[in-house]
């Protein structure tokens, strides 16, 4: 176990928890990124303002990261374009059918001790683990 990677992980996780908690406590909203993206794309009535603002914050935060610590953002493509496109399609479609992603089900759902969030998180981690094995077997 390399502690040099544990501390940043704990610090980053705390920032994520503080952000999601502040959004909940101060506005009553849930920091689920797939739901936020969905609301922005649909032009969801009454929810559009804060959802656009949160999504914009993520993008601006990315720009701050690029400025302070560019090595935190992926420079080289880890996968070919066809694989990136397939993966994006599955992630966008799957998160909306399943009603959430790593932030909504993973952080906010488990943080509420929601059975739905806990089960969804176990499912996508288990399926993800099997997928990694299958990809290795077929040599991708």
């Amino acid at each position, binding site marked *: 176990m390399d502690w040099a990677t544990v501390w940043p992980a704990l610090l980053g996780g705390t920032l994520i928890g503080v952000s999601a908690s502040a959004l909940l406590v101060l506005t009553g909203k849930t920091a689920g990124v797939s739901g936020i993206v969905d609301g922005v794309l649909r032009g969801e009535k009454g929810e559009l303002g804060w959802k656009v603002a949160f999504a914009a914050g993520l993008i601006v*935060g990315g720009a701050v990261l690029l400025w302070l610590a560019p090595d935190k953002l992926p420079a080289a493509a880890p996968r070919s374009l066809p694989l990136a496109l397939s993966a994006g399609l599955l992630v966008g479609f799957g998160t909306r059918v399943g*009603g959430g992603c790593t932030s909504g089900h993973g952080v906010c759902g488990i943080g509420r001790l929601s059975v739905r969030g806990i089960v969804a998180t176990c499912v996508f981690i288990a399926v993800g683990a099997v997928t990694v094995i299958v990809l290795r077997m077929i040599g991708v």
Partner: protein
Amino acid sequence: MQIVIAFACGVVFALGLGVSQMTVPSVVIGFLDFFGEWQPALLFVMGPAVGVYLVAWHLRRGRCSPCGATLPATAAHRLDARLFVGASIFGVGWAIAGVCPGPALVNLARPNTFTLGFLAAMLAGVGLSHAVRR
């Protein structure tokens, strides 16, 4: 006010993803690689993230926010087929690219064919789900 708070939360969320390297696909795929060279980083990110949220939820659920909105009082517990199907489809895509929706937006700051292609396809996937969910 709500808009300013949401924007600030988005920035802090992005910094958290970056600091913890959840924006780096190989770190995420490494976590899912339980039978290879397993990288537990994601576990150390989820721990404090869930822990802080647990406390906030426990203390403030069902109460009033300074913005005047009432916080949700109960969590969702209903399990249905769509949850399992959707989470499974997401799991496959997540493991192929090592990117989930949060990092997909954060990575826009460093555009390349991978980050832009993934994001565009993800938005298309969300759009496609609207047709199915109706």
